Structures are given as C-alpha cells and as structure tokens.
C-alpha cells in the first residue's frame, strides 16, 4: 500500500514539475489554447456563443468516449470496440423504437443494459481468460460490426423517436447563446461524475492497477474486478455517446465508424500513457476538446476532411513517442527513493 501511495505521490510531483511541457494534462490545454488562438485569427465568429454551443454539441460524444476510454487505458488495457458499439447501439435504437415515442425510455434502458453487458464480456474475457484486451476488444469490434450487419441485412431500418433525439439535438432556448444544448448539460454531469470517480478510492485503485498490477494486487486490490469495471464504464459511456450521436444526426449506415480511433487519439493526446498508470481524466477530456478543435481548425482552413485519419495517426504516434521519451528520462532526485526503486525494478 505504501508503495502505491508513494508512487502516486511521485507522479504528482512529476506532473507538477513539468505541467506544461511534461506531456501531462497541462500540455494539452496549452495546445487547446493555441488552436483556439489560431481559430480566432482565421474566423472570429467561431467564438460567438451560438457557434460555441454548436461546438459543444459535436464535441460532447467524443468527450464521453474519451472518458470511457481513459478508464480502460489508465488501468493498463485498451478498448477498440467502442466505435462499433456506438454504431450498434444507434442501429438497435432505431430498429426497436421504430418511431414510437412511447418506446423511448424502455429502449434507452435496454441500450444501457446492452452496453454494460458488452463491457462485462470484454472485461471478463480480458481479466479471467487472460486474453489481451487488444485482441478481446478487436474481436468485439468485429463481432458487433458483423452482428449488426447480419441482423439488419446490411442497412439500418426503423427510425428514432423525437424524444430520443432531444438529448443530442435539442436544448433549452435562451437569449445570447440561442440554445443551451442538452448535450452540454449531460456532458457537464458526466465530467463532474468522472472527476469524482477518479478521486474516489476506486479511481486510485484503477491508476495503481495500471501502474503496477502486482503491487496493486499485493496491496489488496482485486485487479480483475477493477479492470472489468473499467471496461463496463467504457461501454456504458459509449452507449451515452451513442444516444448523443444518434440524437445529433439520426441514423446512417456509417454511424460510429472510426470513433474508437478518435477516442484513443484524444486520450493519448491528453497525456494519458498507453500501458496505464499515468494521466488524468481531465487530460483525456482536454484531449477530446483539442482533437475536435483541431478538426474545426482544419475545416476553417478549408482542408479536406479526408485529412483527419492521417492527422489522427500522426497525433497518436507523436503522443506515444513523446510519453515514451518522458519516461526514459532519468528520474528526478526530488522523488522519493521508493518510487525510483519500483521504477527501476520495473525496467528490468
């Protein structure tokens, strides 16, 4: 237990030292600020309240996905199935609701249950059957993708109800901002909940598990439970993201495609280390905001949207390389000896 606490204290010291350039959450917010400044030169109307609200609507699902992905990544795993899950959930919702307002709530509950089930399966296969999460969730991605195609015969059918579309599309009419989107309200709730969760003992155990699985286990954490919960959280967040995306734009056959990639890019951009144990949920959220702002900037600069996958690829490699460079630095002498000890042991 002491080991874990001290390691965490070491982490805190490090992030405090290099908050801006250390590849932690500070860096991503500096980057976000920079992108905003550039956008303001290109097109100042972006910062008018209605435009910002529109931006909030678009970015909300990505932030939710990034939060979910953060739980999994910080625990030392990876979840590739979220994009397919979003697609599957929207298609399921459209098919089951089929335009009937009265079915909205039952279908929503069913979606959450389905999301939790998918996360549970991902988690249990990874932790109990010891299949690498990369393979588990890659498999789940394909299974969901294929199953939805099979079930719908290749194309989504049915329609979403107006009520279902409200969270992603509607809002409260206000002066100044024109409309306060529900998506923003929902986003704030989840952001606060995620921060609270990471401050709770569960959050601390989650990070400890990702940092050093064995140490966490010795200090009494049930690693498989902690990780499985992270997968469930990720899938449930993906479900809420699906509600927002489906609400925002309705059903198309392409919905959800490539979102796992965007979510992972956002998380690593936020300074969260692939492999677990390092990074903050606020950083992951910042990563999502930054990624979406970057895409907005691309749009404002009239770059073709086909550049996005390439940009994501560059970001993910650069962020991982940056984080690797950070970690290969000699450990600062101000850090507690124990932390350094565990660090060097884990290197060998």
């Amino acid at each position, binding site marked *: 237990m002491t080991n874990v606490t001290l390691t965490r204290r070491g982490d805190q010291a490090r992030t405090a030292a290099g908050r801006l350039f250390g590849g932690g959450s500070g860096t991503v917010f500096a980057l976000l600020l920079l992108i905003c400044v550039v956008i303001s030169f290109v097109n100042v109307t972006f910062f008018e309240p209605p435009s910002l609200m529109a931006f909030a609507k678009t970015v909300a699902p990505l932030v939710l996905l990034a939060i979910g992905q953060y739980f999994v990544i910080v625990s030392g795993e990876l979840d590739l199935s979220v994009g397919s899950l979003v697609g599957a959930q929207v298609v399921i919702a459209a098919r089951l609701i089929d335009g009937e307002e009265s079915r909205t709530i039952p279908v929503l509950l069913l979606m959450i249950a389905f999301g939790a089930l998918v996360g549970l399966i991902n988690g249990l296969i990874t932790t109990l059957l010891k299949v690498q999460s990369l393979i588990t969730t890659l498999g789940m991605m394909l299974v969901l993708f294929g199953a939805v195609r099979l079930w719908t015969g290749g194309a989504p059918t*049915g*329609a979403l109800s107006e009520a279902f579309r409200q969270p992603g599309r509607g809002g409260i009419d206000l002066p100044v901002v024109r409309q306060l989107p529900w998506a923003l309200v929902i986003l704030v709730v989840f952001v606060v909940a995620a921060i609270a969760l990471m401050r709770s003992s569960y959050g601390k155990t989650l990070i400890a598990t990702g940092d050093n699985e064995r140490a966490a286990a010795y200090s009494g954490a049930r690693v498989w439970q902690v990780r499985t919960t992270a997968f469930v959280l990720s899938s449930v967040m993906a479900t809420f993201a699906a509600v927002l995306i489906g609400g925002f734009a309705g059903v198309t*056959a*392409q919905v959800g*495609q*490539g979102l796992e990639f965007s979510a992972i890019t956002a998380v690593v951009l936020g300074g969260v280390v692939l492999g677990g144990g390092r990074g903050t949920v606020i950083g992951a959220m910042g990563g999502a905001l930054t990624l979406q702002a970057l895409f907005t900037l691309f749009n404002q600069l009239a770059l073709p949207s086909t550049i996005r996958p390439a940009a994501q690829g560059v970001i993910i490699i650069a962020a991982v390389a940056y984080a690797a460079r950070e970690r290969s630095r000699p450990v600062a002498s101000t850090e507690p000896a124990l932390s350094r000890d565990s660090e060097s042991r884990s290197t060998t």
Partner: protein
Amino acid sequence: MRKSRVLLAGAAAVALALSACSTDDPDDAADPGDDVAAEADADAGDDEPDDDAGDGDADDAGDDDQREDDDWFVRADYERQLAQRDIEPEGPADQPWLQAIDPDWTDTSEFAAETGDNTLCFSNASVSNPWRVTGWITMQQQVEVYQDSGDIGEFRVSDAADDDNQQISDIQTFIDAGDCDALIISPSTTATLTPAVQAACDSGVPVIVFDRGVNTDCMVTFIHPIGGYAYGADAAEFLVDNLEPGASVLALRILPGVDVLEHRWAAAQEIFGASELNVLGFEFTGGDGAQIKDQVTQYLQRGNVDGIWMDAGDGSVAAIEAFEDTGNDYPVIAGEDELSFMRKWQETGLTAVAPVYSNFQWRTPVEAAVKIWNGEEVPSEWVLPQEPITEADRDEFLDRNADMPSLHYAKFGGEDLPGFPDVWQDR
C-alpha cells in the same frame, strides 16, 4: 514492466492502424458511393485525355480552382449521358427495368436453352449499403417469379463483401463448377475484375454484368442506368434553375476516387462553372450524418448557404437539420430517392429534387438471363432510364412506398413482385 509497456504501446499503435483500415471512413464509407457507382466503366473503352475531348466554353467560364479533378472528366461521355436523358427509351413505360435507351440489339440464339429449370448464378460485390440491400431484395423476388414459372431452377449466389480477391475466386468457382446456365456479375471494381469476367466469358456461359462495369465487352449484355454525369447534372441544373445568380452552394461528397461519384461531381462542376452560382467549396463526409451536420453547421457559422449539392442522398436529412438547428432558412437541395430524404422534403416543403440512380436495375439481369435462354435479343449495352423525382411526382412515390423503411429507395421498382411489401419492410 517498462519494456512490456513499450511493447503494448507499439502493439496498440499497430492495432489502431489495423482498426483504422478495417473500420475507418476511407474503406467503408466508400460503399455507399461505390455501390451507387457503376456506369462510367462502360465507357472506359473510349476514355480520352480530356484535353483532346474539346473543352467548351462552359469550362473556361468556370472557376479554375474548381476544375482540379479533370482526370475524371471525359467530355464525350458527359455529353452523351446528358443527351441520353432526353431520349425516349424503348420498351414498356410501366416497366422501366425492361426499357433500354438507344439499344444495340445483340443475337443470343447460341445460348438458347431447350428446357426450363436453368441454374442462374450471381456473383455479388456486396450488400454493404442500403442501396445494394434494397436492390438485392428486389432481385431475389424477381428470381422467385421465374422459379415459379419454371424458367429458373436453382439460384446460386456468392457475396464477395467488397473484396476483389474474394469475388475473383467466387467467379472462378462458378466457372469450375461448370453448371451455371447464366452468370450475373455485379463487379466490385472495374480493372481488377476484368480478367475474371473475361475468363467467365471464355468458359462459354452467357455473362451478364450490371451496375459497375468492366473493361471488356465480352459479356452478352452490360446493364446500367445512364450514369454519374447525368446524376450530377440533374442535381446541379436544379440548383442553377432554382437559385438566384450569386447564391452560395455547398457541395457534400462522400469520398474521393470512386469513378461514378467523381463523375457526378465533375458534371456538377461543369454546370456550376457555367452558372452565376458561387460554389463555397466541397467537403468529404463519408456519408456519415454526424460529420455532414457538423460540416454544414460550420459553413453556416461562417456565412450564408443557399444551396446544397450532394453526390448521394446518404445523410441529406442531417444536412437539412443543420439549417433547422441553427435557425437558418432551408436551402435548395439535391438529395436522392432515399425515403428519409423524400419524407423530410414532403414534411418541410423545401425546394428540392431527388436525382435517381435507378435501383430497379437489379431486376434487369434476371430478365436478361431469361431472355437469353429464350434466344431473344438483348441490348449489348442495356442503358436503363434514370429520371429524377421532382416535386410533381414526389407524393406519388411516397404514397407507393408509404410503409417502407426510411433507408429504402423510392424507385426500387418491385411493387408488382411477390412478397411486396413485406420482404422490403422486414429486411
């Protein structure tokens, strides 16, 4: 531990790349367009460098920045397709899938089959988008008609799931089996599938190609609607006719590099270039509603958008909603005969047109196979009519498709087939 982390990170990066390949836009998003796309390949034979194709005034009048995709523009094909729109097709008016524009009849007596119960084989590129799904259902129902009448015995199908190699091996399997009495091929891509189609022809079986084409004319008939230039022109001309000079038009495209989609856009550029309209730009959306809505919203933040040109109807409702949600007036819009768009059009009463890439073409290959077995003549290139749905006949088509799902295509042409409407509803 650290080593394993680095490994994990590396593995993650590889997996990401893989997952990007398997699920990211470029591949999958290609489908809607792909599928809708076919025609131009028929013309591959007369492809000329466009400089020779005689650049007209319209071209010069246009904004040069908009003409960078000239590789995709063959003026002779463009003009022929535009002219074909005005040609009265031969054949029964109430059965457009049997009509042919300017047909060049070819003799098929060598393939005439004495007995019924023929085996029909079909190598399908994929059913990976709503347009193909709709057509595939129609085709199966058409086959049922001829199974009941005894013309077709067995109907064998292979689905290549958009994989060229898979389809080449599918076709080879049909050839090797040697018991297909006719082989229908809906090619996945043009150049790659050409040798496979050639091999099928050489085996002596009558080959019918439809939708996308191949670079050979060995098949008995090649079936396709007029084509991409006509589609793009229908949409662009409507915007030109219905917008004031100087109005701003935004073009939403699915993805680059697919011939038919490029032809749609090339035709639109040609027409916009000669008009007074101001083309704000074009955006690739992958046909994804969320991206479309986001892009349109951003354009609206920067200024007015008076018209929307789309190279396929996927996600057109999301584009319209972007105007609603930002409190802007509806644009003049060219969508497609997809029902979600047509219903939105009726609901809102906006000024719109639905260009059509005739989905009923999925019936024609089956009809052609039966004609060939009967020794009847078929057109060597079977150009089907391709008429946009306008406000005048919109409600009629919506009534006919009232119970159909929203990702169904109005001109699917299967109303008289067995199983209507249930099989199209429960897909």
